[in-house]
Every structure is written in C-alpha cells, then in structure tokens.
C-alpha cells in the first residue's frame, strides 16, 4: 500500500471532486467539481506510466528507460475532451442564468414545480 500512495492520493482528490459534483447546488461549482474529479483520474493514468529513474519519452542519446508514453497520449485526449465538456457546460450555465435568473439547483427546481402547478 505504501508504495502506491500516489494512487491513494489521486483517489482522495477524485472523491473530493466527485462529492462537489453530486452535492453542490450551484451549477458552476458542479462543473468545477467535475473538472477536479477528471483531473484526479488523469493523475491515476499518468502515475501508472511512470518508471522510477525513467525520463520523458523523447528520444535523446542516453539509455535511461522511458516512462510509458501511452497513458500520456490517452490523457492528452481526455484533457481535451474534458475542456470541451467544460466549455459546453459553461455555455449551458450562461443560458440557464438568462432563462431562469439563477444558477442554484433548488431554485430552478422550485420554479419548475411552480410552473407545473400553474396553468
């Protein structure tokens, strides 16, 4: 367990982010939580690629082992996906603010419930 403390660390951060997503009512903060959650998952991927004493996977003279490039590639893609999601989410938040006048989950739900009871 001790050798794998990096994973434990990443998991704890991931769970903090996850908690923010599912518990917080502020839509903006939810998105930031999502971001934290995802970045921590990226850390898990990157950690598994590390080789002790290794170097970055760019070929130079020298014979130190290379850290594993594949997780790096995957995470580059995942970061991009993450920022795309974030941009869309923020766009939605802005529109929600314009439509409802608030970005608090419970207030939006209250407004929707009121609509349903009304005509």
């Amino acid at each position, binding site marked *: 367990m001790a050798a794998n403390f990096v994973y434990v660390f990443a998991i704890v951060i991931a769970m903090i982010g996850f908690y923010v997503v599912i518990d917080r009512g502020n839509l903006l903060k939810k998105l930031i939580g999502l971001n934290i959650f995802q970045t921590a998952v990226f850390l898990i991927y990157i950690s598994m690629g590390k080789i002790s004493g290794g170097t*970055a996977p*760019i070929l130079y003279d020298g014979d130190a082992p290379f850290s594993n490039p594949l997780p790096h590639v995957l995470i*580059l893609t995942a970061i*991009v996906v993450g920022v795309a999601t974030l*941009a869309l989410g*923020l*766009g939605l938040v*802005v529109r929600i603010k314009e439509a409802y006048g608030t970005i608090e989950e419970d207030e939006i739900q209250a407004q929707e419930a009121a609509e349903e009871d009304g005509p």
Partner: protein
Amino acid sequence: MKEHLILRVISKELIPFVMLFALYVQMHGDYGPGGGFQAGVVFAAAFVLYGLVFGLKTLRKVAPVAVVGALVALGLLIYAGTGVAGLLLGGTYLEYGPLAHDPVHGHHYGIMVIELGVGITVAAVMITIFQSFAGRGEPEQD
C-alpha cells in the same frame, strides 16, 4: 481597457511573439513537447489577449465570426481528408505510409499535416468560444 496606453502598447508588442511561439510549438511537436493542440491554444491566447485589450468589436474585425467558423470546419476536414488520402492511395484509413515514396517520410508528412489540422481547429474553436462568451456580456449592438 481601451484607454490604458501602456497596456495597449505592450500587448501590441507581445502578441507577435506569442504567435511566433505558437508556430514554434506547432512545428516542433515532433522533437519536443508540444504539437497541434498546444499550439492552437497558445495561438488562440494571442487573439484572446487582443480581444481583451482592444475590445470585442476590434477583434471581430481582425477575426470575423464567419471566417473563424469556417476555419473550425476546415481543420477537421484537413485531418479527416488526410485519412481519405491514405485510403485513396491504397492504404487503410489514416495510413500515412503511402503519402510519400519513402514510408518514413510519408509518416512524417502525415503527422505534420494532421497536426496542422489540429492546430487550426483548436485555435479557431477557442477564439469562437471566447467571442461567444464575450458577445453575451455586452448588449446587442448590431
């Protein structure tokens, strides 16, 4: 921020260098860290800085929404088109080998072209996003 003379002068000096750095990152992705995506982001940052300092209207003149939108699509087309080129030349989709007589060169060209596609799309999307968000903040004027 239009009245801050110092800011305007400094950013005017700065922006070409930011763009130059972006191009360096774009071209140098084969050798060091970096590549199309990072270059696109840095390149877009130059435009964002310009927009912040000189105002959205000026930015729209330099980078009209329609042109940027077309570039968004163009980048993806370059990438996907490279794949089709490999296909037409007798390889499978996205196979770079057939692109040149020497397969190694083919791979090198292929990577350069698709990185260019990545860079264009990423930069254009980032500018689009900035323009859209900033455009929401100010009252409709035109």
